[in-house]
């Protein structure tokens, strides 16, 4: 396995994430797309550290990405729950109060 394959997987993850965010209208699905993008970045960091340089910077970055992604998902889901309780919908097209 060379670096190329790892990077290809991460590119695929990244574009899947972008595609999910553009195509899906469900807010939970959009949050999942964000997770895909973050994981693509984490994978990149780990792969670059493994193949190109041996210091631990990249590994530490990937660990922090995982932790912070969890925090972000927690806050994001809490807000989505709040939105659902008020609107009874998790469809992004229902978030139209603020457009003039």
């Amino acid at each position, binding site marked *: 396995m060379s670096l190329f394959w790892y990077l290809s997987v*991460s590119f695929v993850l*990244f574009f899947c*994430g972008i595609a999910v*965010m553009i195509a899906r209208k469900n*807010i939970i699905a*959009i*949050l999942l*797309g*964000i997770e895909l*993008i*973050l994981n*693509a*970045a*984490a994978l*990149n*960091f780990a792969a*670059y550290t493994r193949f*190109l*340089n041996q*210091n631990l*910077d*990249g590994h*530490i*970055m990937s660990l*922090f*990405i995982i932790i*912070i992604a969890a*925090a*972000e998902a927690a*806050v*994001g889901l809490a*807000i*989505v729950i*709040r*939105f659902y309780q*008020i*609107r009874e919908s998790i469809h*992004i097209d229902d*978030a139209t*109060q*603020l*457009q*003039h």
Partner: protein
Amino acid sequence: MALNYLANIGRFIPELLACVTMLGLILIEATYGERDKDKKILSAASDLGLVMVLGSLIVQFNDTPTAIFSNAVVIDPFSTFMKIIMTLGTLGAVYLNGQSRDVHQGVKAEYNILALGVLVGAMLLASANNMLILYIGIEILSILSYVMASLNKIDDRSSEAGLKYVLYGGVSAGIMLFGISHIFGVLGTIQFTGMGALLQSLSDSQVAIIIPSFLLFFAGIGYKIACVPFHMWSPDVYEGSPLPVTTFFAIVPKLAGMALIVRISFVFFSHDGLLSQSWLGLLVIVSALTMTVGNVSALKQKSIKRMLAYSSISHAGFMLAGAVVVDSVGVRAIAFYGVTYLFMTLAAFYIVSFVQDKYGNDHFERFNGLMYRYPLMAVLMCLVMFSLAGVPPLAGFVAKFNILSALIGHGNYTLAIVAGLNSVVSLYYYLKIVRLMVFKDAESNEKIEGFGFVNQGIIAALSLPILVLGIFWNQIFQVVDKAVLFIQ
């Protein structure tokens, strides 16, 4: 080693104080619970903490620049100066939170806690010296901001604002990280120190990877300061959030992002070369677009809050134009712009907030005939509006003039002309408020409770620097001049 860390912590006191204050506030809030008297203790504690942070920052201002914690964080006068501005902004927003009726009574304490947390993130961002600290800073800033935006839990506009903030924020953070990961892959380090030299020695194929990576990286920061391709969230979030939160968003995250952009332009791109030219070209285009789109969209707004949101976008464009000039003149112009922007924004939002508390909305008509009911407030609002538009004897003019002269000194005439034209456009919507206040009859003669004696005094005190800095700008320049030191 241990001693070294202790010495490092000595330089990190402001951030630690902010953290301790935040934790203390959480404890007080948790122990006192529902009783009414805790509100006073809480606001006193947060004010005390912020004043202490401010004091330690001022003490630190004249220190020599150092990098601490294994080069992760750099404490230099520029970052300290930006931190002072941001702390002042937080202090103003926290006071407004105490007065405003837009934030529900039950969550006022939480506002203070979250604001301190965001301040910590903003401080980290202003003094970040590697990609990890940058990312952690941006995420502390963003994640807590999401909560702040949806602070009024039962208000559907507020939770929608939070929702939009989460979605845009998460996406842009992810895209930024993807960019950073490729920058790391090419350069092999996340430290800022020495990165500028490394960028010089890249082969052509490496440059081909790193230019799109920097584009992705810019998306993340651009989102934080709401510059144009990434500004769509900003008017919605600003309008949906409670007004004290909007005040806070307009100042702290924006200036933190600006400090970061200045540092990145300096550390990475102060050498001449293809990369620097493309980065600066990007900044020129983005700043021109940001100014224009912000101003043109502000023209047709009905809500003053939304108008101020668009105007803060265009001010971010102006500050970005200062970052195009990568030398001490540009940094000085940005630092001065930050100071004036702080006072103008705070004063404008204070007045709008008290009017909105009275009438329940902030449409332009609510300001009709304010001149005949609260002459002092109307005059100060006129002052702020003229200053935001950049009319001569006021601070906003000096700030804009500095940016323009830095641009012209740098030979960037096109951007300077765009900036000048934008000031003219912005006059239209700022003066619309002035016209309504002076030439329209008052809708009613009811008292606005918010404009008590103390609050009027505070608004006057906030507007005073606008006048003073406009005339005696030389004095503040001597302070700002010290702030342009950097560790390369």
